[in-house]
């Protein structure tokens, strides 16, 4: 799915025809893989939501944020605070409250950051995320410091209390149910983001990315649209953070620290930030790469770095970008 439209815009029929088989595979997937693999894949889908949000800024607006860990972390800590201080177990409440907090922080940080572009924008986003990390790290009597806050799946309920996880095989039941919950939200987020990037607003963002001066001379309010893109981007990433907490069971300041922002950047670049589906693929692949690198050696950062270096050098337009280019070449030959 290239972001450049075809004759009359993207073909909805073609997209639906491609999406239905993928969706069927995703729905039946839990029948064919074990709980651990399903859990891994659920992480991948959650990171994909974060990367989709991140790419609204990088791929469509041309702004490289090095601080998206902040919004992921705010979402995660919002859910953890609701458990710790209010004893709430409903994921829907986590989502509602978490999105409000993420939205407020994104709006405030975005207001400051979009006044600048290029490296200045990147540094500001990094600095602001580090402020949040410091707060989470130092205010340990509230945040639990490096010990973090636990969010036990056993207290969690889905669909307003219709589904809970007690008794035997509760963890397996949780992973299965949670996978479908995340899959549903992933589909909603993907659809929402697809509409956004193909809307007049999405086109205006691409115009700002390609040529800010010309966009200004078409009467497009550059700073306001950048801010709105920032707010949406942060909110998507925040939702991912909210969904991540129950699966991970623990939130620590690491999730607010800059290396996690770097991981979101890497997921997106690995998949291909010039394509709509690139960040989704990149997030899922990166998650597997990281998990298996950690499992195979103590020097996993070195291994992961080497693998990523090779991938980036060999696939400069990302996995999806490279595949679409090869597919395009084959079609021309055919």
């Amino acid at each position, binding site marked *: 799915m290239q972001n*450049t*439209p*075809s*004759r*009359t*815009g*993207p073909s909805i029929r073609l997209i639906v025809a491609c999406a239905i088989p993928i969706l069927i595979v995703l729905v039946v997937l839990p029948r064919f893989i074990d709980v651990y693999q399903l859990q891994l894949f659920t992480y991948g889908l959650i990171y994909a939501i974060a990367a989709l949000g991140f790419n609204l800024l990088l791929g469509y607006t041309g702004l490289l944020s090095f601080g998206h860990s902040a919004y992921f972390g705010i979402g995660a800590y919002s859910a953890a605070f609701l458990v710790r201080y209010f004893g709430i177990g409903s994921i829907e409440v986590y989502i509602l409250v978490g999105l409000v907090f993420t939205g407020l922080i994104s709006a405030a940080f975005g207001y400051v950051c979009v006044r600048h572009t290029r490296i200045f924008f990147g540094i500001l986003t990094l600095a602001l995320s580090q402020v949040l990390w410091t707060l989470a790290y130092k205010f340990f009597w509230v945040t639990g410091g490096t010990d973090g806050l636990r969010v036990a799946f056993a207290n969690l309920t889905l669909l307003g209390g219709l589904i809970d996880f007690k008794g035997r095989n509760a963890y397996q039941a949780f992973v299965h149910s949670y996978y479908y919950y995340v899959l549903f939200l992933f589909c909603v987020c993907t659809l929402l983001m697809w*509409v*956004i990037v*193909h*809307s*007049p*607003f*999405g*086109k*205006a963002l*691409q*115009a700002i990315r*390609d*040529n800010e*001066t*010309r*966009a*200004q*001379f*078409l*009467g*497009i*309010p550059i700073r306001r*649209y950048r801010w709105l893109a920032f707010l949406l981007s942060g909110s998507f990433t925040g939702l991912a953070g909210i969904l991540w907490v129950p699966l991970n069971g623990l939130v620590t300041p690491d999730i607010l620290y800059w290396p996690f922002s770097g991981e979101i950047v890497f997921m997106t670049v690995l998949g291909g930030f010039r394509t709509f589906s690139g960040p989704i693929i990149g997030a899922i692949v990166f998650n597997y790469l990281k998990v298996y690198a950690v499992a195979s050696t103590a020097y996993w950062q070195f291994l992961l770095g080497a693998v990523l270096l090779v991938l980036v050098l060999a696939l400069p337009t990302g996995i999806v970008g490279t595949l679409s280019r090869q597919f395009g070449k084959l079609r021309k030959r055919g």
Partner: protein
Amino acid sequence: MNLLETINLKKYFGDTHAVDNVSLTVAEREFVSLVGPNGAGKTSLINVISALLPSDSGKILFKGEDITQSTVTERVKAGIARSFQIVNLFDDLTAFDNVTLAIFSRQGKTANLAALAHLDHAVSAEADTVLRNFNLVGKRNERARDLSQGERKLLDVALAYALRPKLLFLDEPTSGVSTRDKGQIMDTIASVVRGEGITAVIVEHDMDVVFKYSDRIVVMQQGAILAQGTPDEIKNNDQVAMVLLGSSGPDAFTRKD
């Protein structure tokens, strides 16, 4: 009635007087050419009027209202549009998408993030009409970066035109294109501008083009207005001929050395 009026407009870059006390009026539906040697301040003047550059002093009145302090967006909304000396397009978007963006912006629809852009059939039809007017309908689905220089120049003007401006600034719309294409581009632009009754101010070096299409010519030198008048008056102005051609006398502009 004057659509545009500048009063003692100044823009200095250090010791360089890019725009020096320029008082200029442009009447509605007039086709005015700004000419002058390189560095005369033609582009700086339209950059200041269109708000790409802030003025140091002086006033800009548009439709009788003082717009000196207004932003680019406010001037665009008021009805001022422009094309650029170095073509300024959204290179990764198709010619069609470039034009639809201008139409969406004019209609205040760019804030809409809940509808698919390509399903707005009224905007698509209007974009096709604009492309047809500029002889670009055959290039509808080509990316802007893949168009020829002449087509890119036309698309640049088409974007400004799609805003349905009252006043259109065209900064060297034929620079960098072949002599044959120059005539076609100017014929297309003139027919659209005259047909729609748009007021146009054009910066141009080619005096054949200037004499053929202008109602009035304004000659600039060192940031100031040296002379202005109809094409015939300018043709017979020895001072202008000396500045522009380095020679004067009868038929200076038609002599082929």
